[in-house]
């Protein structure tokens, strides 16, 4: 009995003439994701991707887990491949699904026959396999409306497949169908979630992190690397650029009004980020802002930071509550790391009473006290690149 994985392609199907491109990308991404586990045959047909292990000792639990993290897969299930013979199929259904069926209260059988040469029609297959299962497990009831387990039999060109309920996949679109964008990541709860959400829409990520030694420490940077490593489990390889930001922060602190510190800092970060993003062929910036969460995330403040850049800025969390953001961060496993207590953009600089409704002319005037171009140039040229791979 050979076990394989069937991955269902969702939204990808809708993309008209691009469908082939998307499917090819998805196949490529699944291959790359599974590469460390051994040799697989990965093929797309009829909006399903069939993943067949070619080595005997492949861990199928781990394989299924990894398939569940590839964007573009809406659902996946582990299935048993059998020869196209009705007796072999009913035997396989009972043997392969024994654990599942023994624990269940009710079931039904659904059949799909795309190989019209197979001598039984779909309703016949369901009837034969269903009664064989019912005979084998006398406590199991047939329930065609609301079964606990749906046993699916698919008779395809190459072989027949038997499987039970499918698992939900990661959804979204295959990377990099959405292009490349740069996430501004601090180490808090929000930015890793924002990164994940855009990667889900097929974006290939570049990360930009601002470091201000000695106000921030190596541990804070290490924390960001750990967070990106977790995100890269979904998003794939990420290039992280660490920007030396101390000088700019010290200068803002020294020369600009205290209540505008954060807003001016955000504007500098956006300027620096756009420069780095352009250098690395990113077409947008991504931030973890959520409307009204803190003073620098009010509508006025966001308008004020946005005007410093020409690139689109994606804010996937803009309409989410903290609770909803935390739920995602727990799901993708970044929450605990985000809570580590290291200084990020450093409380030393945080104003006691930040302005919540900054006016752009006022901020621009406050900024004009300093010539920032050289400092921005220096920050952009001083970046350090680290490449993050999934663990």
């Amino acid at each position, binding site marked *: 009995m050979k076990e394989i994985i069937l991955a269902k392609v969702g939204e990808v199907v809708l993309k008209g003439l691009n469908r082939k491109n998307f499917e090819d990308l998805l196949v490529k991404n699944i291959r790359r994701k599974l590469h460390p586990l051994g040799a697989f045959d990965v093929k797309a047909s009829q909006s399903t991707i069939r993943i067949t292990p070619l080595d005997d000792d492949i861990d199928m639990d781990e394989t299924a887990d990894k398939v569940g993290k590839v964007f573009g897969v809406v659902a996946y299930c582990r299935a048993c491949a059998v020869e196209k013979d009705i007796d072999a199929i009913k035997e396989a259904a009972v043997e392969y699904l024994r654990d599942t069926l023994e624990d269940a209260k009710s079931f039904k059988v659904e059949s799909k026959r795309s190989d019209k040469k197979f001598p039984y029609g779909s309703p016949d297959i369901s009837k034969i396999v269903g009664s064989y299962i019912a005979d084998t497990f006398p406590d199991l009831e047939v329930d065609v409306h609301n079964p606990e387990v749906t046993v699916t039999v698919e008779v395809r060109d190459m072989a027949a497949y038997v499987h039970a309920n499918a698992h939900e996949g990661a959804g979204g679109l295959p990377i990099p169908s959405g292009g490349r964008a740069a996430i501004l990541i601090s180490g808090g709860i929000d930015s890793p979630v924002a990164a994940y959400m855009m990667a889900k829409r097929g974006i290939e990520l570049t990360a930009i992190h601002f470091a201000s030694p*000695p*106000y921030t*420490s190596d541990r804070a940077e290490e924390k960001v690397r750990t967070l990106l490593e977790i995100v890269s489990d979904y998003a794939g390889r990420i290039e992280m650029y660490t920007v030396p930001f101390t000088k700019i922060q*010290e200068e803002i602190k020294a020369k600009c009004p205290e209540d505008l510190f954060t807003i001016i800092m955000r504007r500098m970060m956006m300027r620096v980020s756009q420069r780095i993003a352009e250098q690395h062929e990113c077409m947008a910036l991504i931030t973890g802002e959520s409307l009204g969460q803190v003073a620098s995330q009010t509508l006025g403040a966001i308008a004020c930071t946005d005007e410093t850049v020409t690139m689109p800025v994606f804010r996937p969390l803009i309409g989410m509550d903290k609770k909803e953001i935390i739920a995602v961060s727990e799901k993708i496993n970044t929450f605990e790391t985000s809570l580590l*207590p290291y*200084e990020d953009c450093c409380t*030393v*600089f945080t104003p006691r009473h930040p302005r919540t409704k900054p006016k752009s002319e006022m901020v621009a005037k406050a900024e004009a006290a300093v010539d920032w171009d050289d400092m921005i140039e220096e920050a952009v040229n001083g970046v350090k690149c680290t490449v993050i791979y999934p663990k």
Partner: protein
Amino acid sequence: MEAYLDNSATTKPSPHAVSEMMRIFNDVYGNPSSLHGLGKTAEEELSKARNTVAATLGAAASEIIFTSGGTESNNLAVLGGARARKRRGNKIVTTAIEHSSVFESVKALESEGFECVFLKPDETGHITEEALKEAIDENTILVSVMYVNNETGVIQPVDRIARIIKKKNAPALFHIDAVQAYGKLPIKVQKLGCDLLTVSAHKIHGPKGCGALYIRKGVHIVPLVYGGEQERKIRPGTEALAQICGFAAAAEEIGDLKKNLEAVKELNTYTLNGLMKIDGVVKNSPDDALPYIINISTNAIKSETMLHELESSDVYISSGSACAKGKPSHVLTALGFDRLRADTALRISFSADSTKEEADRLIEGIKHGVETLVRIK
């Protein structure tokens, strides 16, 4: 070369301790409980190490239990001591400035229903005899007080406590957390009159992961873990022989306490002279504190920022206590410091090997930091 002035967090293991550990790892790998020859050799090493450590405390070898370190010894003493005496009373007396391994253990007992008193220090960081006399009564079953405070270096009057317990007719076990005093002040358990005393290997140039609890002959405490017959069933589990022998090797090298203390006192004065010339710096340790520890506040630069600034020139110190990792220190808070003073506190801790050259680099670094870094308000 680094200027390592964070010896109250941990010390560099001595070459002798390291080579002893390597010798045990490579050659004496038997289980001390095994009946064969390899086991016997291991048991002999264990017993030699126990004698050595016992001698440094003026204790009998049979009164020493090896543990995984100061935290475990403190937990065992506090939890095991209180549980052994719970039929004789319900009150536990400790201080608000204990190490977290004592503090949190007592908190745990509080949630189990014990009445727990956390004595506040006076403005100089000392727990007064009067406060102790007032708190200890006939219902008190455990008194736990540290010898030297790990953040300020304040020496507590532990030599007075046994007498108070006796006078008050308290059925109390007396525990001393001597982790920061060990290898720096003379410790004679008989003279201190304690029932339980905690020491740790890695504060005296031994390995991390090893410590000891002195349990006076005849004193019964309840174990925290259950298993075999090792360590008189009070701390079962196969002994970490290499670490224990590394501990003993470091204990052998403690040297002349008086001479070391004189040298460190001179270094302390020298360092303070330099530091106090920096604008805004105040001393948090009282004059009679153990000279191995200096606590100051810059009143200008956040502790963590200053730490990383010093780090960039290879100078290593601590902000408050290393176990707190960034949280505001409960010890400095108990001393009633204002926010700025607590947020800008630094702990410098010497070992007998620390040098003036290291002190110079520290002073220079803090001076440079205060002059150039962004201040908090």
